[in-house]
């Protein structure tokens, strides 16, 4: 009979016993599950699969604040299940918000009539819209930077695709009488830091992005209430833009006439200007040197094969993956099975909208024994494609270097 201590050791500390079973079904070993080999050694060796309440076992990056990554196998489906969706927090005080007592305040100098909404108001008083969109952490793949940069050393799974349903932010702002002075919309959630001096996690978006018909205050995710860890009872959904703007447990939305001064906009989540092929700008927050991160850069992921996997010579096999971008839509995905000499078009799967994961498949037929290196490269409808060389930046954002997966042909 196993003791509690053995149990805790085996499951990495928390509840669900399914963790062990899940791991065993992955024949390619813990390394591939915990992330790509490029991650810092200390990150790989300290990662465990652990289930937060209501979640399946995810890759634990840090306990407090909680940061958990989605294992790559979940990306074989276009939509990421709520209980496998990644978790990312900056600050450690995360209250459990009750649906009944939750209130959302709409205020600021650039609205005529401040509002306070209940969850029922949000659901019943506004047109409800559902949009499929990728939420990707700005720092997804940071752990693969060469050289490494400090931060949460994410592998490939700080992202997910879901159907988000809620009211349009622009409708709510209109109800509050948004005026022409509005420059930025400031978003705050229920979480906070340990010390009063710790900057609260508050973000702003340009008013034009807030007024985009796709920007929502969502209370539903894949047909269910949002999991606590993904922002219950409501979060802001900013399709096309990185996850930093998708305020969880949103409690306050302020329309302001001047650039917001908070740490998380002024100092954090910034990229050097002119280095990335992005179109959306956040002009009121730009400096000569840098600018807030905005749209997600075009990217792809090979989801059904891992390094070192064996395939059989002369036997065709399917390579599967996903591609996504900042909302221009995926134009094509090309696959190479010879390390990048020749590229052929993959077959694109169902289109769930320009903000969603687009699945693709490709049939490879290895004709010689040895090894083959598989690569995939997505191009969006704006003509942007993935890079072969990392675009260095201090905070480790926008990693979309073409992946290489080497297989053994026997």
């Amino acid at each position, binding site marked *: 009979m196993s003791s509690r201590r053995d149990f805790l050791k085996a499951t990495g500390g928390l509840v669900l016993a399914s963790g062990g079973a899940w791991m065993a079904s992955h024949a390619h070993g813990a390394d591939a599950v915990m992330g790509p080999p490029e991650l810092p050694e200390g990150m790989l060796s300290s990662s465990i699969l652990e289930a937060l309440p209501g979640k399946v076992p995810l890759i634990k990056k840090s306990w407090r604040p909680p940061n958990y990554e989605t294992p790559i196998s979940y990306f074989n489906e276009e939509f990421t299940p709520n209980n496998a969706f990644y978790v990312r927090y900056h600050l*450690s005080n995360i209250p459990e918000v009750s649906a009944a007592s939750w209130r959302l305040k709409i205020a600021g100098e650039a609205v005529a009539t401040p509002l306070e909404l209940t969850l029922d108001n949000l659901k019943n008083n506004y047109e409800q819209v559902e949009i499929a969109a990728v939420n990707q952490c700005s720092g997804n793949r940071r752990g693969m930077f060469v050289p490494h940069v400090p931060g949460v050393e994410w592998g490939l799974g700080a992202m997910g695709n879901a159907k988000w349903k809620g009211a349009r932010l622009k409708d709510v702002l209109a109800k509050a009488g948004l005026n022409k002075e509005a420059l930025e919309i400031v978003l705050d959630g229920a979480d906070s830091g340990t*010390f009063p001096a710790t900057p609260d996690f508050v973000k702003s978006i340009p008013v034009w992005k807030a007024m985009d018909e796709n920007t929502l205050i969502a209370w539903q995710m894949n047909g269910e209430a949002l999991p606590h860890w993904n922002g219950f009872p409501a979060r802001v959904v900013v399709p096309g833009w990185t996850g930093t703007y998708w305020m969880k447990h949103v409690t306050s939305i302020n329309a302001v006439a001047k650039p917001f001064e908070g740490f998380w906009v002024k100092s954090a989540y910034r990229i050097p200007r002119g280095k990335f092929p992005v179109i959306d700008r956040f002009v009121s927050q730009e400096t000569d040197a840098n600018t807030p991160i905005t749209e997600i850069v075009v990217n792809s992921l090979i989801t059904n094969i891992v390094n070192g996997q064996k395939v059989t010579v002369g036997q065709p096999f399917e390579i599967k993956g996903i591609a996504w971008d900042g909302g221009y839509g995926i134009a094509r995905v090309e696959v190479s099975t010879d390390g990048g000499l020749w590229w052929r078009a993959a077959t694109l799967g169902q289109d769930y909208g320009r903000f969603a994961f687009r699945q693709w498949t490709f049939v490879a037929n290895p004709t010689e024994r040895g090894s083959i290196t598989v690569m995939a490269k997505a191009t969006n409808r704006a003509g942007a494609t993935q890079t072969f060389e990392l675009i260095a930046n201090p905070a480790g954002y926008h990693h979309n270097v073409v992946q290489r997966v080497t297989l053994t042909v026997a």
Partner: protein
Amino acid sequence: MRTLLLVVALVLCAGVVIAAEQRVVLKEGPGRDKVEANCTQCHSLDYILGNSPFMTRQVWDAEVTKMIKAFGAPISESDAKEIAEYLTKNYGQP
């Protein structure tokens, strides 16, 4: 086993709770106590493991300074120095 079931039941009943933070045993060495006392005020120590072993003294210094200046961590100057030294020696590179 009964204890285990009780633990599981309690956690499930509690609904949403923060994950139990496991104790990270850092390497023995001068300054470890300062790291444990100061850094854990805001975050778990696995942040250190995950960011190792690639950071130089300069980079660790910058991280500790960021915790104080940007995040408002009340860390004394002497503790900050010891922390950066410990982290460079045990979780960084020279």
